[in-house]
């Protein structure tokens, strides 16, 4: 029972209205032990953010069960979820998400103020300690706008640590900072994981983050895999095919109008040149039609207007 996170058959379906459904998670099973540093990679739209939302108690699954630190959070109401979040979860965001109106110190104090378990003095001391821990003792009274991206992310990490959470969830924590600074952030996360045995689950595109993690997971089409799944690339290829198809359709349109123009001016043009141009155009049209038919069968019989 050292599992700090346990997801069982978690499904999340979004209804976008007019009968359109998006299956963001299609039965996720996942166990994370205390003290792990887990990275999750996967293409856009594979359900990474939805998974974070589920584990962080920001959103509720359509079905399945989520147990965090021994507690089933699936049936919790809004108020209890808010309490759960501030006691058990720390968040690190791609865009840092600090309160722009508060200083670094005040931002770190915020979760402790919400939970209201410490005195003012204790809160202030802990917030300064945490900022010292992430190496920002000299920037405590700066507002987020006066801090660099890396510094802001450090403040966010200090804030995530404030209430000694069971897990810290990271959403592309290096996604919006330069590589060198990103390395330092990764170093900090690794240190915190090793010295404090702080559990991290981080969604990322950054290979450096993935390499630093103790366990790599992969997501594709709403499922979690332990190895990079072959299907992981289906989405981009489909996207590429679709782009190509659109280009071909555009070319086809142009050819058709050119052919029309050519026919109209048949009398004025040298018959040899006319027949040469006509057959060239015609051949290209045939070629495009064939390509479009091929794409249609590859994409699963999508209708073809060509």
């Amino acid at each position, binding site marked *: 029972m050292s599992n700090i996170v346990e997801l069982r058959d978690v499904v999340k379906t979004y209804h976008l209205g007019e009968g359109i459904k998006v299956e963001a998670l299609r039965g996720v099973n996942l166990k994370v032990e205390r003290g792990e540093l887990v990275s999750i990679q996967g293409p856009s739209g594979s359900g990474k953010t939805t998974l974070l939302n589920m584990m962080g108690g*920001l959103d509720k699954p359509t079905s399945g069960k989520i147990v965090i630190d021994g507690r089933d959070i699936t049936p919790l109401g809004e*108020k209890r979820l*808010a309490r759960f979040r501030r006691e058990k979860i720390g968040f690190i965001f791609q865009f840092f998400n600090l309160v722009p109106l508060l200083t670094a110190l*005040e931002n770190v104090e915020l979760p402790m103020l919400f939970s209201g378990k410490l005195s003012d003095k204790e809160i202030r001391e802990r917030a300064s300690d945490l900022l010292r821990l992430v190496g920002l003792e000299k920037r405590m009274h700066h507002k987020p706008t006066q801090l660099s991206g890396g510094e802001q992310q450090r403040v966010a990490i200090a804030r995530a640590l404030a209430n000694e959470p069971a897990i810290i969830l990271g959403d592309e924590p290096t996604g919006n900072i330069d590589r060198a600074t990103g390395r330092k952030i990764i170093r900090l996360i690794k240190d915190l994981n090793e010295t404090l045995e702080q559990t991290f689950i981080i969604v990322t595109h950054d290979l450096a983050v993935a390499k630093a993690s103790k366990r790599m997971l992969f997501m594709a089409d709403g499922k979690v895999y332990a190895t990079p799944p072959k299907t992981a690339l289906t989405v981009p290829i489909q996207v590429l095919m679709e782009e190509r198809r659109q280009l071909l359709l555009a070319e086809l349109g142009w050819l058709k109008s050119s052919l029309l123009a050519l026919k109209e001016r048949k009398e004025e043009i040298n018959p040899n040149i006319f027949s040469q141009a006509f057959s060239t155009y015609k051949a290209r049209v045939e070629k495009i039609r064939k390509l479009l038919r091929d794409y249609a069968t590859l994409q699963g019989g999508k209708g073809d207007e060509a």
Partner: protein
Amino acid sequence: MPRTLAVAFKIAYRSITRRKFRSALTTLGVVIGISTIVSLMTVAYGMRTQVKNTLNEMLGAGIIISSRTGGVDIPEYVKDIILNVSGVKDAVPVVTTMINVGDRPVLTIGINPEDATRLYRVSLEEGRLLRQGEKDSVIFGATTAATLGIGVNDTVTLSAQQGVVGKKFRVVGLLRAIGTGELNIGCFLTLDAAQELVNRKGYVSNILVVLEDPNLGESLEETFREMFEDANIVRQEEIMRQIDRVMSVINGVLLALGSVSLAVGALGILNTVMMSVHERRREIGMLKAVGAERWHVLFLFLSEALIISIIGGIIGCGLGLAGVYLIQWLVSIMGLNLTVPLLVAPEVLIGAFLMAITIGLFAGLYPSWKAANVPPVEALRYE
């Protein structure tokens, strides 16, 4: 809990000061509304107090006993009976009637000069007061005299509507004021002269009763009612109450006018907080992600509305009082013979301030409620 409120207030305050121009405009909306209300209400309050004071001094009596017919038919000796009633300090018989001066009807009061000076503080514009027993002299209120074109030492012809016609009187004085009120209308005779003019010697139309203690008013009114079944007994408080009723209608109209501008201010607050909520959706989501509950968020945005309305309320009250000077100045350049008193009424200021806060709360409630319902997943949405 109070600490989270303090933080919410701090964030709200900084949010307001960060967008200085927008906040200033919004506050201006509240300021205009509140200052309009404060100006109008202060002027109304001053007028009402002035009218009340004037009347108090004019009447000077706690209870007025009048003839039910409105004529001059109360025997004068009733005064002595009343004087014997315990709790009565003074009783003054008067004749109040309409008398034609030449051919113009003028409200005329017959009162013994001694009684008049004992009851009221009288100041003259010109000439002298009447003397006891003087039967061929008259004084006029300065305004009436001006309207009629009469001066001191002129001779006027007075005719009762029922009684003597065409008796000549000499004008001996012009009245500026009774008490602090600007009572300078009407025509004044000695009681005897008035009685002779209306042909009712030994009778009066009213007896003004002065009480030893204003609290006795109600019980003495009852006593008089039993003693003089045929008379009208009116307590001065009643008259005041009626005037109050008229005044509160005027007040209501002014308040409604002011409220329209305050409603515009409320819309301003609504708009500003709505924009603030819209711009800060991600921040709200993030606050919820780090553990803020709905009421934390609700209070955060409500504070914004509240701070604006408090500042607007305070400035509005100040400007409103300044506005009274503006009204005074306007009245004076328009040449109106009207004094607008500046009386600072705490209840007007407190009322207007509370109104500002209430408006702020109501205008802020809807957008704050919307903010409280922003889902926490907004924190992870990046578009």
